[in-house]
């Protein structure tokens, strides 16, 4: 329509006056500590690199027990061949974990008596296969088809398709897989939605020959419009809450869960200085409190960032090589490192990371996790701030005012901490005194501050 053509520019012109400039995200502060996956007892970790309908899924095994008893059954959308499976380096998941973990940063107050000049110039100081697939075996009586059978690294892998769940359960048991009771009921929906089963076992000879200490992550690639993660099977014999850390790597932006709410972890708050020594404990409590507050049925976003930079960095950004190992398959190969003083940056590599933390139980997470990639490129990080007071001599008026303001500040920090962690505020206040005694020089100054004079 003719008249429509000039309306849009006009509207845009009017709206431009309203001027919604995107908020600049700039953090600084000295990176001190991170709350990584080691905090949790039973945290499974999964990396999903996805572009379009192509997915590279890396699964870390947190298996605790005899390696010979290890067996993994994962529903997958398509038949997987030997070329689509590889063993990934365990280090790569540690790197992603370290890069995206909730972090503790610290700032130091300036001398309030120093001549006033532009403050806030604190620079951040970042701390630093052989193809043997295709021997199809068909066990007609059980309705189970072995779509592929091959070995990769220390793993013996089977890709099964089944007609009915009872048959699959029997087949697995006959072939020496310890399947927990109740699996039958849970396998059925996957069979009916024509999913295949990726079954892995450890080949003990090869495991011992290679001298591995731990099971290495398995990485599979496939093409399917399904963007989901089956969690139901993992809940069969779970007695307690399970933690799942999902690192989704996308060329576009944030990934969110479409069938559960995705909520940001509390972030960007000032907390007392003593947390420096117990950051892990602090984050654990903070997470648990947020989890309980949200009714135990949401997924938490712990980090969302373009992977070419970080600020502050809790670990070096991943190199192109490392990203490739993590499954990123859409990278250009023009790597050139450039490091600026305040931010680390690698060449734009089109990788956006979303770190999702799901703590789930059977009653609150009935359905498998479904994801969608969005074009939301807003950065977010779980970030907690320690603000060190100025400890030098204070002989000016501004200095005295500063000193008085500290009490309120500390009290505020104590209250924030109590709210986040559900810890007892009296205990917090007591602990804080220990760290703040050397700040005020005499008891009467303390008293005056307390009176607010």
């Amino acid at each position, binding site marked *: *329509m003719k*008249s*429509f053509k000039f*309306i*849009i520019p*006009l*509207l*845009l012109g*009017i*709206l431009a006056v*309203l001027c*919604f400039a*995107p908020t600049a995200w700039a953090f600084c502060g000295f990176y001190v500590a991170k709350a990584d996956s080691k905090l949790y007892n039973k945290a499974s970790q999964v990396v999903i690199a996805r572009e379009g309908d192509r997915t590279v899924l890396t699964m870390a095994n947190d298996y605790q027990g005899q390696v010979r008893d290890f067996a993994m059954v994962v529903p997958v959308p398509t038949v997987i061949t030997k070329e689509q499976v590889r063993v990934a380096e365990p280090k790569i998941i540690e790197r992603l974990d370290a890069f995206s973990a909730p972090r503790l940063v610290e700032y130091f107050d300036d001398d309030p008596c120093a001549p006033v000049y532009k403050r806030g110039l604190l620079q951040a100081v970042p701390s630093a296969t052989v193809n043997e697939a295709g021997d199809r075996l068909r066990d007609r009586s059980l309705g189970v088809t072995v779509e592929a059978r091959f070995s990769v690294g220390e793993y013996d892998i089977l890709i099964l398709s089944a007609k009915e*769940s009872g048959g699959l359960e029997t087949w697995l048991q006959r072939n020496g897989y310890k399947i927990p009771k109740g699996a039958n*009921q849970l396998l*059925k*929906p996957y069979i*009916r*939605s024509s999913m295949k089963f990726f079954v892995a076992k450890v080949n003990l000879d090869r495991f011992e020959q290679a001298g591995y200490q731990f099971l290495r992550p398995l990485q599979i690639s496939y093409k399917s*419009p*399904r*963007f*989901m993660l089956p969690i139901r099977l993992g809940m069969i014999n779970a007695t307690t809450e399970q933690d799942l850390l999902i690192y989704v790597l996308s060329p576009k*932006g944030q990934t*969110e*869960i*479409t*069938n*559960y*709410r*995705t*909520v*940001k972890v509390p972030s960007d708050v000032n907390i007392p200085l003593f947390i420096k020594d117990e950051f892990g404990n602090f984050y654990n409590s903070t997470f648990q409190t947020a989890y309980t507050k949200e*009714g135990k*049925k*949401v997924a938490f976003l712990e980090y969302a960032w373009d992977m070419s930079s970080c600020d502050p960095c809790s670990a070096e950004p991943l190199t192109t090589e490392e990203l490739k190992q993590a499954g990123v398959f859409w990278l250009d190969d023009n790597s050139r490192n450039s490091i600026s003083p305040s931010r680390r940056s690698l060449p734009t590599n089109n990788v956006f990371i979303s770190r999702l933390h799901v703590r789930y139980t059977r*009653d609150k997470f*009935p*359905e498998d996790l*479904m994801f*969608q990639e*969005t*074009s*939301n*490129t*807003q950065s977010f990080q779980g970030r907690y701030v320690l603000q060190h007071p100025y400890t030098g001599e204070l002989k000016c008026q501004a200095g005295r005012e500063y000193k008085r303001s500290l009490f309120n500040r500390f009290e505020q920090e104590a209250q924030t901490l109590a709210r986040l962690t559900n810890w007892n505020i009296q205990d917090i206040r007591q602990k804080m005194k220990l760290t703040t005694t050397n700040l005020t020089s005499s008891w009467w100054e303390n008293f005056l501050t307390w009176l607010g004079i």
Partner: protein
Amino acid sequence: MLLKDVRDYQILFLSLFLLLGMATRDWTLKLEMITVAIATCLLTQWLLSWLKNQHTQDTDHPLRSLPYSLLPPEINLRSPLITSLGLSLLLRADHWTTMALAAASAIASKFIFQINAKHFFNPGNFGIITALVLTPDAWVSPGQWGEDWWYGLLFVGAGGMILQRIGRWDTTAAFLGFYAFLEAIRNIWLGWTWDVYWHRLMSGSLLLFALFMITDPRSIPNARIGRIIWAITIAIITFILRNYFFVPTAVFWALFAFAPLTVLLDILHPSLRFSWFEMDKREC
């Protein structure tokens, strides 16, 4: 007067959801985006009404003689407000230009896609699909509305609709009922437990869609039988897109694709056209 028109209740409900959403639920909701949506919808409505007025005015009419023709027509505030609130609730974008495009095209669709002076695309839905197709940064967050809270929304929304007597509850009932039926069959066939079923049905944008989008009486079929056939068709397509093509925004695509079906159903099942004005008279 305020709350005299039934649409005022709808505006009230939608604003309430937005406020609640921003306060308690959805961190992807942003005030500036809502402002952009409202401003663009109102402006587009005003401009296009004015242009249309210019085009169709009767110069013989004393009030339509030249000096008056430059004046804008009486502006319809309610319809663009509802559209903009609906867009704010459902559509997410990285840049405000995307939201402006969605809002402008939503309103423009009412003026452009008309047959017998009746528009057949749902404006909000048209805006959402335009943004999803034409821009790289638009998305819909189906999971961000949680579950429990939606029981409240369901009751308030449904109660509100019946109270308003707009007579379009049949569409919501047919859509939700048939969709729930299809999902139930699938659930039984797959062998999932019923908590999976309820969890699937409580998808936030599905309910918001069923209560507030497909009930727009101005763009859906006029006859009851036409509306039921139409709603069931959309339910079937939504079901297929969601479960077999794994499209998280299935409802919006289904409505968009089958909006023109309204024209056909109106021919096959002729009935009186809905008018807010008639509605007001009836209420009096």
